[in-house]
């Protein structure tokens, strides 16, 4: 057991847990932050997608000891605060397009979408169909076409 401290959704948190426990379980089982979902624990389904220092990553595949004191972890719960609003523009687009079905993958889909748009913007370009094809997040309900529409809409407002 050792202590691990990092920033989570704007607040400093400290947990006491073994080094190799993956961050997903620290978030869900210890800190009670359940927006990131367990879908595989294999860095495949992407339903736990969250942000580390603004970049999309999958906490199911990162030992908590790899998270530094200065690292900022953002889960879906903390996304609106990153833009100082009640909802992030991507979440608004998601609502307008009524993307969700069962909803299990959607927090991860939104977090991945935000990071994808940020990456494209950093590269000074718009989102392409090839970008969207490259998103690996599974939606077993098959909402893919609404996800694509919502990302384009959300991107226009980011």
């Amino acid at each position: 057991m050792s202590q691990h401290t990092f920033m989570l959704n704007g607040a400093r948190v400290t947990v006491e847990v073994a080094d190799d426990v993956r961050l997903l379980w620290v978030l869900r089982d210890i800190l009670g932050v359940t927006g990131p979902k367990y879908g595989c624990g294999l860095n495949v389904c992407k339903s736990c997608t969250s942000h580390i220092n603004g970049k999309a990553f999958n906490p199911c595949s990162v030992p908590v000891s790899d998270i530094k004191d200065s690292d900022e972890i953002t889960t879906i719960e903390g996304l609106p605060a990153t833009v100082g609003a009640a909802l992030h523009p991507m979440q608004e687009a998601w609502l307008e397009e009524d993307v969700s079905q069962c909803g299990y993958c959607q927090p991860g889909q939104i977090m991945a979408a935000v990071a994808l748009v940020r990456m494209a913007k950093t590269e000074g370009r718009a989102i392409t169909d090839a970008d969207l094809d490259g998103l690996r997040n599974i939606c077993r309900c098959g909402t893919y076409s609404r996800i694509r529409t919502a990302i384009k809409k959300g991107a226009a407002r980011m």
Partner: protein
Amino acid sequence: MAEHRRSPEEDTSPPNRRRFLGYLLAAPTLAVGVTWAGAASGVEQAEAAIPSLPQPEDIFDLGDLQNLAALATSGLIAVQVNEDGTASFALHRTEVGQGISTTVAMMIAEELDLPIDKVHITLADARPELLMNQLTGGSNSVRSIYTPVRTASAIARQQLVRTAAAQWQVPEGEVTTKDGVLSHRSGKSASYGSLTKAAASDRTIQVSATLKAPADFRVLGKPQNRIDAHDIVTGRKQFGMDLRVPNAKPCMVRRPPTINGTVRTVRNLAAVKAMPGITDVAVITYGVAVRGDTFGQCIDGLRALDVDWNPGPVAAESDATVLAKIKRAQLPMVVPPLGALSVEAEFTFAFASNAPLEPDNAIADVRSDRAEIWSTLKVPIVAQGKIAAQLGLPQNKVVVHVVPGGGSFGRHLFHDVAAEAAEISQKMGKPVKLSWTRTDDFRQGRTHPMCVSRVRATHLLGNVLTYEQRHTSSETDFGHGLGEMITNFAAELPIAGNLSFAESIFLLSQSVPYNFGVVTQLLNEVPLKFNTGSMRNIYSPNVVTAQELVVDKLAAKLGKDPVAFRREFLKDQRLRAVMEKAVTVGQWGRKLPKGMAQGIGLHAEYRGAVATLVEIDCRPETVNRPIRDGVTGPRVTKATIVVDAGLPLNPRGLDAQMIGGLNDGIALALTSSLHMKDGLPLEGSWDNYFYTRQWNTPPEVQVVVMPATSSTPSGAGELAVAPCFAAVACAYARATGTMPTSFPVNHGTLSFEPYPTQPSTPQSPTDGLATAF
């Protein structure tokens, strides 16, 4: 000041076409229960002036059967009006993404004249008194709930009107309702919440109310977004694993290397129990359960176990052995092959997984004299009864809470995970939060069994004389209770003979919509003990795909375009209408480059009808486009789906279900299957089981919801899978010039490196930061 209660009068007027009976219930605030559900049976006669006789499905389909089974007990569901002006309804169906809670909220909002955000839908606990009326399946929920829920809501509104009229001393006809407020032209107004105590009844009495005519609908029939959408996009929607039940610590199971294998010995149980974060280890029916502080530590613990296993009942079976057994069990055709006048084809469909994205999970708190269970259950009463028997408790001492599910696709018809959680909690003497791992879900979870569909059609002088289909499958388990309904009502079915449950479900769900002379469709099953169950749309995706491929083959043989041929032979007028719409919107016949083609698939079921027109790209540059750890292959580039849902209640929800069905159909046609080897599927993750991904999904999708063709809604949740699968298969055949006979088309190639069979759960990677973007 005490509210004055007006004693309502008993209503004995007979119900008419839109007037229905219900009960004002004795309760502190207004509550209305419903008993009258006759209209829900809605049996419509099929068009009869046709050369082919109606098949059983035409007269009486699976949903009708479910409606019939539901009649006796529908009366026990109640709509309540609360003092804060909201209405509540504990839904006796399970929300798993199909949108049933939104559609039911719309029904209540419509008849109560209440804004939809003031309608609260929760999921009812298991209620044994509802008998088989608490089963979510067969795309039947909206069809069976439509009349009872609206009736309860209309009676509630009427009672509020009567109460206001009495208090204001004005005629009832002068009191209007809008957005949860009662008004009179004199300027008097009152919120529903302020009158609900006064409107309540002190005894249970029968009343009736008239439902709105569809022409007067303001909510139903208009596109409505999901009522749980905000909770979903903010991460607040709670699934089973998100619930906090005191001391219900994470729990996972080490599982055998073959399906349903059992534990022979565990060599290091005490050592694993002493591992960091682990609290308990227990041998259970199909493995060894590990309980700990975090799921991650449970994975470490179950991987560290040293176990010897007994083989499971299908340990000797692989794809090839199952296929051989199925082929030996095929029923004979009646009509002999007629050489040039016959079209014959045989199609093989691989095992497929009905695993949703949310791994199977359940919380169980079993004590010596009682138990409490939380899980996503589509047949909670059966789960309650069977778990009670397993635990040795009376059924009424087992409380079963139904939790919204992260998908179902048939998986939650069974309560395997809830029963296992109960077993573990009883053995450990502690509450547990059990999650199956992803690999467990694919390897030990329920599957849609392998099946073969053989078709022979004969034709002469441009007419099709006979169409015979013999569908042979490894057994599908219907042990979740659907069979019970058929047992109860078998005598009333318009089918002669002594049919098995599976045969009954097959006959009630299948029919050929073409004038093909003498038509027979028969099912036979091979009793192999795989963990099987219904997958979305049960038999239809396979049966209809085989049928539509043969229809295209017949068309080609008679020198006709697939659409022109269908026009000539279709007997179902609603299918004809959706096909014509799809032909126009999807631009049937437009010119495409070599290697690309269109395909059309038609299917009617659940009193609805769908036509799907897709375009597929089978050119090498598309088929071979690289995606890391993904199957690319042919891509459906464009899809048009036209749906006639009878009376479309929520076009936006229907559109969503059509898109979902499309992506299921694409997966079943092209990429997703289980490879059975030595008693275990090889698939262990979503990068092995290739459900449709963004790189497979069509960039262009259009859904057209047809205007109402009926006064009642059809089923929708499963409706699109079969026609979409068929359309993709037909398009693939036309693009490549070869009719595929084995599905999915890539099943013959193993496109991944399987995880080891032991330990049963792979360790989570540690390099997640390397893929950050």
